[in-house]
């Protein structure tokens, strides 16, 4: 098979992709169809492109085909497992041959540079987690903002109790919940590594619960630096948002419950 980057090729990779997506102009399309009839390598290339496209479609099922969530375990839509396996098998088979016949090592290295999470690292997280189907919408879990604006130790203590009670409450009912703790103004103290009394407790909660996030306000951070010369160090895992107030408005627009603690 010829190297697709070979300029002597009649049809570029762009041509072939456009053909697969029905985006080629009629004259180009006819020309290509003629060549496909006689050129087996070209046919194979087109076929492989179609397979990649089909795999993408299969990986993200049509919304109507997605089953309802059954607790935390999704039900699969009705794709034939063997057909899929066969598709992948042919693809692999074909590509294995192709890979050896025109060494593309350089291309493979290029791809692996782009910010790829290590596949084996992903493997380490796999054990024991239930399978999650792509649900049509995750609108069901209640979504709650806790807005922290003060650093009074008594209030913060109560707030942490309330937070834990809240998370435990939903867990006990086996219901998922999304909680976002947004801090601005004096409330930032909760998340500052140098002043918070809750380093370990927050770390524990972050580990125990999915869908829990702690948010710090960039504007507050900037003000702290400008007015008091403090460059705050934040706890690990804290999300920094441009503006706490803007975030609150966004969340309210998205239908989150708002609680000022």
């Amino acid at each position: 098979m010829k190297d697709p980057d070979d300029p002597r090729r009649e049809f570029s990779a762009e041509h072939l992709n456009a053909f697969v997506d029905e985006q080629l102009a009629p004259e180009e399309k006819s020309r290509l169809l003629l060549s496909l009839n006689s050129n087996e390598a070209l046919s194979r290339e087109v076929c492989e492109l179609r397979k990649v496209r089909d795999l993408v479609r299969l990986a993200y099922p049509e919304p109507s085909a997605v089953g309802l969530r059954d607790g935390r375990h999704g039900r699969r839509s009705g794709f034939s497992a063997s057909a899929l396996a066969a598709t992948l098998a042919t693809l692999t088979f074909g590509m294995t041959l192709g890979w050896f016949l025109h060494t593309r090592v350089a291309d493979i290295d290029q791809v692996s540079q782009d910010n790829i999470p290590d596949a084996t690292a992903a493997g380490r997280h796999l054990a024991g987690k239930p399978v999650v189907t792509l649900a049509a919408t995750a609108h069901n879990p209640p979504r709650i903002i806790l807005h922290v604006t003060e650093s009074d130790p008594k209030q913060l203590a109560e707030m942490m109790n309330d937070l834990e009670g809240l998370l435990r409450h939903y867990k006990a009912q086996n219901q998922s919940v999304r909680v976002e703790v947004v801090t601005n103004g004096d409330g930032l103290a909760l998340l500052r590594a140098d002043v918070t009394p809750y380093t370990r407790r927050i770390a524990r909660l972050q580990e125990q619960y999915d869908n829990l996030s702690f948010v710090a306000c960039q504007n507050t951070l900037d003000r702290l630096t400008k007015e008091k010369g403090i460059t705050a160090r934040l706890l690990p895992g804290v999300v920094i948002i441009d503006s706490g107030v803007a975030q609150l408005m966004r969340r309210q627009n998205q239908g989150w419950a708002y609680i000022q603690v």
Partner: protein
Amino acid sequence: MKKFLAILTAVLAIGALQGNALAADKQHKVVYHVNGGDEKQHMATLRNIDNHINAVGKDKLDLRVVMHGNGLDLLQSAQKNKALASKIDELKLKGVGFKVCENTLRAKKLDAKKDLYDVNVKKGPEGDIVPSGVAEIAILQNKGFAYIKP
């Protein structure tokens, strides 16, 4: 037989209408969130609530006060503070619900019957105790309750 069925249908229809009227949602739904404050502030909050009721009309208003964390002080103080206690009575007569957070009770080791003023400890929605005050506020917001933090 036909006549009996006709009457039965009519009776059921009327019953359905009445049931609907009783179950109809009140127009205005508000949750007041109390999680701190001293006695002076608590009194002020209760007065604000009273004004709110007078402005809207008690039959049109479904108003609930949810207390958690340090907000339980309101009902603790009311055990000794007669003015607070009678204001609470007044508001309850006007239909205000006072809900107490069970998490906080446990955390502060409080006995609802002994330490807090006039709490209905019956389980379920008629009682005054909710498993998590914060969750309760979120649930009410999802049901369309407006949120007020005095």
